[in-house]
Every structure is written in C-alpha cells, then in structure tokens.
C-alpha cells in the first residue's frame, strides 16, 4: 500500500472489504475516551474489526453531534485530549493495519495551522479528514493543503441535499462519501424505508469512491440491509456507548457483521 496516496489508502481499504463480499465497517471513537491511557489499545482493537477507523477530535461545541458524542467529547477535553496529543500518540504507535480518518470541527484545525497539521498527519499515518462544519463553498483553502499532501477531505451528504449539490459533493469527495441521514433509525431492525435506499442509490450513482452510511447502526440486521445500498457503514454512538459502559468493543463490532 505504500505507493498509494493516503486518501487512496482509504478507498482501497473499503473496496477490499467489498471484494470479500462484505460491507465495510467504519468504527468511530472519540479520541482518548473513556480512558486516555487506553487510546492506542482501543484503536488497535477496533482497527482489527474495522476496515477504516474514524477518530473523533473532541471539540467544546460539537453542534452537529448527538448527546453521546457530546458527552464523550467534553470528558476527553477535560482529560487533556487535544489534536496535538492525538497526533503525537498516533505517531508513536505501531501501524494499526487500517487507515485512520480524523473527524474534527474546523476550529481545532485552524488553531493547529493547516500546513503543520498535514505534515504531522503524514507522520502519524492519518489519511484524511471529515469536517462537519466546513461546507464545500468554504473549503478551498483547506482542500488545497489536503491535496498537496494527498490527504482526503471526506464530504458529507444528507437526504435534504438538492440533486445538483449532491452531485457536486459526491464528485468532490475524497476517500469515500459520508452519507448521513437526519432522522436516524436508531435501534430497531426493520427493513430500510424506500426513501433511504433511493437516497443511497442516488449517492452511489454520482461517485466513483465508496459510499459509507452513518445511521446510528446498532444491529447486525441493519448492517446487512445497508450493505445492499452502501459500501460501508459507520458505527459511532453505539460504539461510544459500549466504551462508556466499559465493554470490549471488538465482539460488538464483530457481531455487527456476523
């Protein structure tokens, strides 16, 4: 994989999972939560089960996140977790065996400085970013730096995104397209409603990179259903709740794809 650009590593890892006729799994954890010392070991555990790992950089004002992520973010900040600390830890750690994507609000990135950030990402083995409060129109400066270092800037799309914008974002996304829904289908393992499957199919039609869906996935049946319409699923709050409860994340993740 060493010849691939960082952003290509993400795509390749997701495609590799699909090749085995499996839906790709993208587990998300809030960095250093609930135990700062266990950050790297937790990361290794989820990297073993997942195909790409998403690390949340805690932010004081996570306006696009639900209550679980908010709570874990505030706890991590209180414990001293910062973007500097995360990158230092990753740099010092062995290869995780799965590409790493950082999910961060823009302000910690601004405070770090884009150029310095990109450089240290390369050193730390970080392959790209998801920035929920950086819409496409405002992203040129950050994207230019990402591009320079081959890092991905993953675009988010939503069911209310108009068609022309959806196309633009899908074409512009790197690594994968993050397809979120608003209403969420947390809990329950009912079949996906047609509005969701149509939406995912439409997203896929606009992009050449994989599509990962974030739906508050909790159950294996959801993962299976989503697998017919998306390349991967992102498991966020449900996983953080497992960590919050002190449970081992590996079996939980394994069961989702069983």
């Amino acid at each position: 994989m060493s010849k691939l650009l960082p952003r290509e590593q993400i795509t390749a890892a997701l495609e590799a999972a699909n090749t085995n006729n499996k839906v790709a799994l993208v587990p998300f954890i809030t960095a250093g939560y609930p135990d700062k010392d266990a950050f790297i070991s937790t990361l290794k555990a989820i990297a073993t089960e997942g195909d790409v790992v998403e690390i949340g950089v805690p932010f004081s004002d996570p306006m696009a996140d639900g209550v679980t992520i908010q709570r874990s973010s505030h706890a991590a900040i209180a414990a001293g977790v910062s973007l500097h600390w995360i990158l230092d830890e990753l740099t010092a750690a062995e290869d995780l065996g799965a590409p790493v994507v950082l999910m961060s609000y823009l302000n910690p990135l601004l405070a770090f400085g884009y150029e310095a950030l990109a450089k240290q990402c390369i050193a730390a083995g970080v392959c790209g970013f998801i920035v929920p409060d950086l819409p496409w129109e405002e992203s040129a400066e950050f994207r230019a730096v990402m591009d320079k270092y081959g890092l991905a800037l993953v675009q988010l799309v939503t069911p209310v995104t108009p068609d022309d914008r959806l196309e633009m974002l899908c074409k512009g996304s790197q690594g994968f397209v993050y397809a979120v829904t608003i209403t969420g289908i947390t809990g329950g393992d009912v079949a996906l409603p047609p509005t969701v499957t149509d939406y995912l199919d439409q997203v896929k039609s606009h992009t050449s990179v994989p599509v990962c869906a974030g739906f508050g996935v909790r159950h294996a049946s959801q993962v299976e259903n989503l697998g017919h319409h998306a390349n991967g699923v992102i498991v966020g709050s449900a996983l953080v709740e497992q960590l919050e409860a002190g449970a081992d994340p590996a079996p939980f993740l394994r069961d989702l794809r069983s």
Partner: protein
Amino acid sequence: YAPETLVPALSRLADNVYRYLADDDFMAHLDQQLSTWVGRPTALTHAQGLSKRWGAEVYLKREDLAHTGAHKINNALGQALLAQEMGAKRVIAETGAGQHGVATAAACARVGIPCTVYMGAVDIQRQAPNVDRMHQLGARVVAVESGDKTLRAAIDEAFRNWVADPDGSYYLLGSAVGPHPYPYLVQRLQSVIGSEARSQILDQTGSLPDVAIACVGGGSNAIGLFHPLLADESIALLGVEAGGHGPALGDNSATLAAGKPGVLHGSYSVLLYDNDGQIQDTHSVSAGLDYPGVGPEHSLLQALGRVNYVSATDTDALNALQECCAAEGILPALESAHALAGARAWAKDNQGKAILIGLSGRGDKDMPTLSQHIPSPLGEDKGARADD
C-alpha cells in the same frame, strides 16, 4: 461554516431574506407592526444628569422602552413575520439570559406560530422570571442539559433540532452571529435603531453626534446602531465589550480585544479559544454579553478601523448602571451599562462632545444579580413617626 444538513435550509432562508426585505408590502407591514405593537420609534432621551456629570451632551437611544424590554424584539418580530411568509409550522430559538426567548415568544404569539425555546439548564435556574414570562407567552421552553448548559449549548441544541426538521421549522436566531444569512438579516432588522436615532438627534440638536457607543456581545444592538451611521464619517463609533474580572483569558467576554479568527456556530469571525482550538469559557456579570464569539461584521469593522472596540469591566458596568439610575431615573440592563461605562471613559478624554449611547434594554431582569452586588437597604430603617 454550517453543517451540510443545514446548507439547503440556509440557502432557502437567504433567498427569502433577499426577497422579503426588498418587498414593499412586507416592509410596510413590518413597519406598521413595529409602530403599533413594539412601540417604535423608541424615545431618544437627552440625559441631563449624565451630561452634567460627564461634561458632555449625552443622548440615550431607549430600546428599554420597546415591547418586552430590549432591542431583541425588533429582530424577533421581523423574523417571525418572515417565518410566517415562509409557511413555517413552528419556530425554534435559543436564549441565554432569556431576553431573546421572551421576545421570540411574544412575536410568535402575535404572529400565531408555535414556538420552542432552547435554554441552558444553568441559565434556566439563573433567569427564572424570564422562563416564566416565556411560558406565559405560550412558548415551550426546553432545558438544555448538554455542554456548559448555557447559551453556547442552547445554540448547539437549537441548530441540532433545526437539522431534524429544516423545512417545517424556522430557526429564529437572536444575534448577529451564526451562518449566513443570519448576520445580514439581524443587522437589517436592527438597523431601525440607528436610523431612528440619527433622525431623532438631528431633530433635537440640529447636528449629528460626535460618537455613537453600544455594547457588544454577539453584537446585534451595536450593529443596529452603527450600520446606519457608517457613512457619516464624522461620527466615531465605539463598541464596548464585557471586560469581566480582567484581561486574563476566561475572565472576560472581550472577544474582539482578546480573540483570534475562528469558526463557531456556523460563522467565521473573531473568537475566544485556546491553543487547541477549544472555545473558551467566558465571564461577564452580564449574561447577554457572556458569549465567546462576535458577529462577523464587527470583525470586519474592526479590521477596517471604522469601529473602535474597547472593554468595560464588571465593576465599571455596575458603577455606570448605578450612575444612570441616580442621574436619569433609568435602570439600564447590565449589557447596556457597558456602553454607559465606555461612554463615561470616552467623555473624560473628549469633553463637551455629543455622545449617542445605545441603551439596549432595561435592567429589571438583572435585579437578582444587582441585589448580590449592591446591597438592599431593607430592614435598615423602619421609619420615624410623629406621636400625638
């Protein structure tokens, strides 16, 4: 700098803002409601007592006399009418000290749209009378238990709930902050303050003031006062931020004095944040100024040098509040007291000038805070009596 989920809703809002603010019928209806319901124009008071004490000619633009007691109603009414035109089924709003929540509750009742106000659990405890006022006015008040449980968390929560229903809900933001088009919309709706004040002071004195001074938190009352005066180059403009306990980070809310460019709540502006990019907890005796950001137009006006931004400490503000009470019989909001403190300091260096101060609201809501800082005399004196 808004989440992708909100981009379509914001874009639709922007289209409607441009459309309705240029629509003569809409603007005439707004003016009529401002006049007959809000009570505009609000008075311009020549502050005789302060003028004498400060060696200047001091004029107060009296937003404390507007319906619900502060300038917030100008914006709340305008946006509620816009929400009605846009066919919104409900309005959501955030509030810190509760003034914007009360204004929104009132405007929504008047316009006839149900309204939900998100308010931090800590603020709900601190501002109980305003919570009760909102409730009386028919608003549903939701306690926000996340984050710091104050205004920042309430804004987060309001956005989050708007995300869940971006078409049916109208998010009625209370200050000149947040993603486009809010800063522009709020500035337009608040500019009635400066427009009225400009013509009133010309009527009363025959000339424009030497300086116009307003307090700056998010900055809606300041931008409302300043914007119509920007072209009058002879008028100096002074924004006064909350200096809190002092200049150390975390001890104040003086964003423009101490902050750096950053992104919060969907807009790029000057912010108070630490080396890791975490938004700073702030302090001010005035709940309405206790916000780590500032409207982007203020960042711009600072960069352009058109407006000078200074700060007044808690103590400065409390002293100015007491002086205004004693000299004018007007109890200003603690927010507005920062403008008064800034004016007093300015007057010291500029004797004999004409000063226009934006008195953004009344201080009744601040009585619990004031009682802590300024002891009540009750019980000291039971009165003397003449006997038969």
